[in-house]
């Protein structure tokens, strides 16, 4: 499988810093970080604990704002956007997969998948059909009306992936998405990511496990909030 061709820039960080005040000291979770993620790329973000992986993902996901520098989503500078506009951007352009699945307990599978559309200003008319297709796609067609508590961890994460896809996002962000799963289930989830990549989705997957990073197309290494290096995995399994 070849590397994807240089596509349109989906997310671009320019001299982004994220500084936390810890008492008198400042922690630079991201330190003058510049990078661009292009359409169709599948990135793994690696680094030791505390290297700023989650901070990077939060900035990419417009959940957190840079202390300085500029972050652009498909060319739009996010520093100009207010809270509502950022929320709007999340509901249209971004998909999240979390380590702890983060499904909403009082909603069933189908309803959970539909949540991102619920918050769109003009949701697509075929939302429910789309959600059903995605549920089928992740292998949960027969669990549509189950509550999250009635599902295994792997199944819950599949629902979360379906939910991250329902708004057809420009960028899928996953933070330690397999961190809570056993090896076998992790592999199944990773296979799902591979398929999404093959379909041309843009994915950023945070992990601290080299095995998992190896499944991505490219690996971005972080250290102390700075870019340590980029590795291109040419040996991706088809």
């Amino acid at each position: 499988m070849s590397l994807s061709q240089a596509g349109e820039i989906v997310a671009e960080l320019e001299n982004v810093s994220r500084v936390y005040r810890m008492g008198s000291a400042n922690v630079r979770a991201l330190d003058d970080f510049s990078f661009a993620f292009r359409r169709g790329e599948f990135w793994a973000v690696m680094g030791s604990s505390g290297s700023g992986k989650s901070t990077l993902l939060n900035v990419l996901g417009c959940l957190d704002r840079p202390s300085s520098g500029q972050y652009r989503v498909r060319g739009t500078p996010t520093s100009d956007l207010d809270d509502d506009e950022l929320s709007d951007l999340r509901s249209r352009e971004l998909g999240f997969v979390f380590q702890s699945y983060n499904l909403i307990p009082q909603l069933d599978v189908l309803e959970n998948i539909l949540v991102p559309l619920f918050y769109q200003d003009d949701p697509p008319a075929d939302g429910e059909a789309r959600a059903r297709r995605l549920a089928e796609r992740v292998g949960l067609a027969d669990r549509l009306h189950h509550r999250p508590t009635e599902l295994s961890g792997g199944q819950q994460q599949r629902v979360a992936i379906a939910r991250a896809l329902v708004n057809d996002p420009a960028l899928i962000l996953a933070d330690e998405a397999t961190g809570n799963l056993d090896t076998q289930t992790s592999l199944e989830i990773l296979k799902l990511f591979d398929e999404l990549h093959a379909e041309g989705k843009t994915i950023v997957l945070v992990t601290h496990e080299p095995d998992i990073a190896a499944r991505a197309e490219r690996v971005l290494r972080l250290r102390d909030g700075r870019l340590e290096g980029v590795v291109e995995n040419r040996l991706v399994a088809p």
Partner: protein
Amino acid sequence: MRTIRLGVSSLLLHKLRSALTTLGVLFGTSSVIAMLAIGEGASEKAQAEIRQLGSQNVILRSVKPREDFASNQQTRVNSYGLTNADYARVAATFPGVGRVVPVREIYEEVRRGARAMNPRVLATEPIYREVTGRKVMEGRFLTDQDERAVANVCVLSDEVAHYMFPIEAPLGHTIKIGGDYYTVVGTLMPRTRQRSDAPAAGEQTQAEVFIPLQTGRKWYGNLQVKMRAGSRDMEEVELHEIVIEVENAAEVPTVAAAAREMLGRYHETQKDYEVVVPLEQLLLAEKTKRIFNLVLGSIASISLLVGGIGIMNVMLATVTERTREIGIRRALGAKRRHIVTQFLVETVVLSVGGGLLGVALGLVVPLIVEHFADMPTVITPTAPVLAFLISAGVGVIFGLYPAWRAANMDPVEALRHE
């Protein structure tokens, strides 16, 4: 609509907690309605009683002056009260006065065969009925012809008619007042009453027998003997009551003042009269009612307030408990107002649910009170609507802060929350 359904399903996740929270508003709302109904009932009863006296009338009454000497006499004569001269002065000289009715009270027992009772026996003129707004049920009231003829006829109030004539129609029959026989020529309708017909505790008996004034004067004179335990009181009273009909309601205070002034002048030696002004009492009753309603309303409002605080407390706990859910929703694109709406809907569902049940309970409680405490209650149509709106308002007001707290959480922090 969907938000409401979602809110309800979140609430159903904690059924007991939601139910308990609702109780606060439930009792608050129902007590608002019940209190207003009881207050309204009490004041309507008071007002109805005052209106019976005729709101456009001024009533002068003879009052036995307080005896300020210790008496051990067996028999004595008390001379007091309104005089025929008073009546003449009122009738001739008062401005703005319509009809004036003199009334004498006869202290005699009324009998018919074995049946005896002690109603108020009133000797008065034919216009008494019109001035006091009484209605004839059967036969007729006293007439000028009766006066001229000094006829031994009488008109019975409903209570007397029922007691004396339990089976047959009273018209044409005779009853005995003291030592004389009187032919019944008419009966009167019961005074307009609210709801129950049983007299409330402390209410004066309504039993009355009317005879022509001249007849009363002729047979019973001014000097009457009142039998009391161990002593006989001789009373000399010319008139027991003078009912003044005022032509224009606006002039009632003027006439009342003039009556007080006039009586004060001619009854200098002893205060043996009183001036009753139903209109003044009515205004006083209105004022009392307002205060009453205010106090009851405040008490009920406090319970609603407590209910509201209960809701707020639970919602704050809910918000903390669902911090992560809030973070998830925000990450998936929920705007602050979506979060505000979600929690506000939940509180309003809680409080409106409580409010509806409270309205239902509030409509039942007055019925129970009426049945067991024998107190009249009146539910005005605005009360349930008001109580319902207030309970919904309580939901919004006390839900705003928890909802605002939820909406202003930092999404990253919220997602990290365990």
